[in-house]
């Protein structure tokens, strides 16, 4: 089937190139049939990409080791879920996933808008197919997933143990969905600028795609943070790693875009700004993809060095120059229809919120690329660490949360003193009460954290007040019961109240970040069995070592697990036992490694012990000292080396298992002191809960309005408008 997969990719490239030509020619000549043919080329691209992806996915699930990419990233013993998801652990498979998602979203948006934006759509089609052609070209010429091995190995290399985590395996598709969905508004913005149709129509047509992109990218970023917290063994969820930052940058600018398009829709303002934001988001998505794949910056999340850097740089350069040229050449058309009426208005707050988001993105961009900038200027690489990022991002994030509470309160056009008094009184009172209560509880020792808690309380006050007032207004208009009124209010104004829920979730998330980073207790300690240590209000005693061989029926021995049983007390009250471990996976590179030693020369993965709660998390990780086992390992390697060739494979496997059993028994009975990281952080669960609230709000915004597409006007102009609106109101 590899040939069919390769043929599908070649056809995909061909049809994408045809579609670009047809769309551009059709648009120039006014030939609707040729434009339609170009649009259908996007459908064909989706079909071919899906075929190629299904073939590759099937090869992974069948463990078809004749595919080089399967042999390099999976094995017959890899669990089925990870076989299915190992596709995108490889450079080739993840590029194919990118192409597949891009082509599917492109086909969907072009189908949905097939009767709309007929002047803009052909150019958008050409842009989307251009991106598709780029990725298809990479898959054909540089990173083919359909290369086959002349002599397939008996067993594959298996999936990197670090990636054997559900959150890590769902993280890439979420990120790629976000990146590829942002290509949709990017492409339509380019089309709108080319034909100088810069009203809000292209925004309305693609807004849901921008929202979905924002949602998926956000979920991807959060899944990465969760993986970091639960799997990487350092106890944090965000390290300002270049690849983490690469996904955060387009999300930040995309967030700014989602806010500022409301100003264009309502007031016909900020057209240059909106076009610039979405073009920048599109470029940043490609930049993020480039960072992960080029190997130019060091990151635990990145693929190794590759030859993809050059083509990506060319594409990013072309997109950047093209975007700048388009905006500059259309600056007259992009002129605002209105000016800001007052500095204190909803519009100004939106603009300020945008500036903060762009400033945050700039800080992240500078910090991420500083090693390259420093190398270019001084000849030496120098990285900027978390303290540098925190110095700028913490105050900006604080301002952002505060603005997310102010924005919904303030009036459009101009705020008056009466309006401000009426709108701000309750949220401000909630914030002041929270400040007093928190200061009394001793939170004043960390001023920035206290500021974030107060800002969070202000946002919560805002959201509940707005929901209350909206429900009241609806009840006044319809006479509905309160529960019905609140449900229908949200249902009929999903964008507004979904957005408010997003603000509330972000406030909860940032309160969790502030609390967990400001009031964390952490200690790194070396303990022998029987010894104990304190962390925060917890006492942790290393009761006994644990050691076992982990095997599956199909694969036999998979890895060696060494760990520690720890008994935990909180303020003197026994909480039970927790067991952090470390898994030692055998190296697949057998050159120079002994039969025993290879188990300790491959990847080792920390399995933390976590006691999570709404108030506080206790997080424990262990680093066993395997130095004491080295003489035994060396001795075992020598014995197996001597016996090599003289033993039957079955006897050798039994002897190896017995030797390893002896090794782990020895560790369990004579364990040397182990290194522990003990960490207790308050309110870390609020981060994940806040994220869930954000995504729930995002889903509410995304959900289509009821039967909007089916409503049809029948007759009578002005009377008709009133009647239509009246009918809608009566029904709502």
């Amino acid at each position, binding site marked *: 089937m590899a040939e069919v997969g390769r043929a599908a990719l070649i056809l995909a490239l061909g049809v994408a190139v045809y579609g670009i030509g047809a769309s551009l020619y059709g648009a120039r000549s006014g030939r609707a049939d040729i434009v339609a043919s170009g649009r259908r080329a996007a459908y064909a691209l989706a*079909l071919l990409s899906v075929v190629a992806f299904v073939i590759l996915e099937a090869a992974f699930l069948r463990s078809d080791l004749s595919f080089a990419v399967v042999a390099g990233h999976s094995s017959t013993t890899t669990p089925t879920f990870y076989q299915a998801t190992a596709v995108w652990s490889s450079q080739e498979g993840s590029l194919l996933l990118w192409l597949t998602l891009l082509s599917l979203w492109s086909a969907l948006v072009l189908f949905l808008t097939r009767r709309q934006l007929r002047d803009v759509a052909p150019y958008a089609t050409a842009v989307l197919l251009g991106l598709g052609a780029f990725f298809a070209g990479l898959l054909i010429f540089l990173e083919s997933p359909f290369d086959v091995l002349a002599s397939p190995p008996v067993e594959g290399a298996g999936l990197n143990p670090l990636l054997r985590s559900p959150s890590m395996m769902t993280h890439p598709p979420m990120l790629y969905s976000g990146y590829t969905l942002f290509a949709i508004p990017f492409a339509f913005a380019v089309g709108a600028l080319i034909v100088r149709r810069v009203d809000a129509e292209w925004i309305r047509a693609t807004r849901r795609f921008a929202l979905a992109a924002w949602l998926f990218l956000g979920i991807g970023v959060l899944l990465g943070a969760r993986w970091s917290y639960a799997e990487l063994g350092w106890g944090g969820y965000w390290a300002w790693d270049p690849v983490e930052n690469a996904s955060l940058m387009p999300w930040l600018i995309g967030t700014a875009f989602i806010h500022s398009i409301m100003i264009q829709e309502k007031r016909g303002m900020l057209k240059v700004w909106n076009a610039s934001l979405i073009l920048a988001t599109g470029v940043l998505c490609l930049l993020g993809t480039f960072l992960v794949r080029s190997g130019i910056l060091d990151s635990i999340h990145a693929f190794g060095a590759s030859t993809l850097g050059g083509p990506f740089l060319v594409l990013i350069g072309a997109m950047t120059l093209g975007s700048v040229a388009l905006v500059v050449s259309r600056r007259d058309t992009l002129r605002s229809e209105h000016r800001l009426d007052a500095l204190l208005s909803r519009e100004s707050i939106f603009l300020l919120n945008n500036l903060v988001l762009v400033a945050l993105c700039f800080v992240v961009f500078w910090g991420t690329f500083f090693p390259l900038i420093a190398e270019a200027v001084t000849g030496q690489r120098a990285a900027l660490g978390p303290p540098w990022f925190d110095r700028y991002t913490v105050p900006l994030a604080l301002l952002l949360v505060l603005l997310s509470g102010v924005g919904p309160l303030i009036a459009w056009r101009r705020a008056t003193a009466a309006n401000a008094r009426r709108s701000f009184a309750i949220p401000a009172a909630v914030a002041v009460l929270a400040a007093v209560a928190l200061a009394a509880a001793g939170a004043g020792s960390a001023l920035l954290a206290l500021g974030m808690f107060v800002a969070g309380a202000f946002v919560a006050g805002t959201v509940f007040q*707005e929901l209350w007032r909206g429900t009241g207004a609806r009840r006044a208009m319809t006479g509905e019961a309160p529960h019905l009124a609140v449900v229908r209010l949200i249902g009929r104004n999903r964008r507004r109240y979904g957005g408010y829920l997003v603000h509330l979730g972000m406030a909860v998330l940032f309160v969790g970040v502030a609390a967990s980073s400001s009031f964390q207790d952490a200690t790194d300690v070396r303990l022998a069995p029987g010894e104990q240590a304190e962390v925060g209000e917890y006492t942790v005693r290393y009761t006994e070592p644990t050691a076992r061989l982990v095997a599956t029926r199909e694969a036999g021995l998979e890895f060696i697990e060494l760990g520690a049983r720890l008994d935990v007390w909180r303020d003197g009250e026994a909480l039970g036992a927790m067991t952090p471990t470390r898994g030692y996976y055998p190296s697949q590179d057998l050159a120079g490694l002994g039969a025993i030693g290879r188990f300790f020369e491959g990847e080792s993965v920390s399995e933390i012990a976590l006691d999570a709660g709404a108030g506080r998390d206790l997080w424990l990780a262990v680093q066993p000292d395997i130095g004491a086992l080295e003489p035994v390992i060396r001795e075992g390697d020598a014995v197996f080396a001597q016996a090599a060739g003289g033993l039957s494979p079955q006897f050798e496997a039994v002897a190896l298992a017995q030797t390893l059993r002896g090794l782990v028994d020895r560790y369990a009975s004579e364990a040397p002191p182990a290194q522990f990281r003990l960490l207790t952080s308050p309110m870390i669960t609020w981060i994940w809960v806040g994220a869930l609230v954000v995504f729930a709000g995002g889903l509410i915004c995304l959900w289509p309005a009821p039967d909007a597409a089916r409503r*049809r006007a029948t007759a009578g102009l002005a009377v008709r408008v009133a009647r239509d609106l009246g009918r809608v109101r009566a029904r709502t």
Partner: protein
Amino acid sequence: MDVVTLVAIMALLGAVAWLVVAPLRAGSAARDEERYEGARADLEAAKEAKYAEIRDAELDHATGKLSDADWRAVDRQLRAEAVEILQRLDELGVP
């Protein structure tokens, strides 16, 4: 390359060709119909968006985010724009 592989590739090629060429085989009547439907869809979308703006402004006014004077001005303008869209929809008539 075996026969099954060859057949699979030819089937893919055929499906793609059929998909892409179909609009080119449609007659001019179909193209006119499509053009009319496109213009109508644009106006219907604009109408729904305008109605949404009017309702949104009403909620803003009811919750104190638009003063009486501003709301009246905004509402008047939005309704005038909605009237214009309806006029253009009526002018479209039937294909």
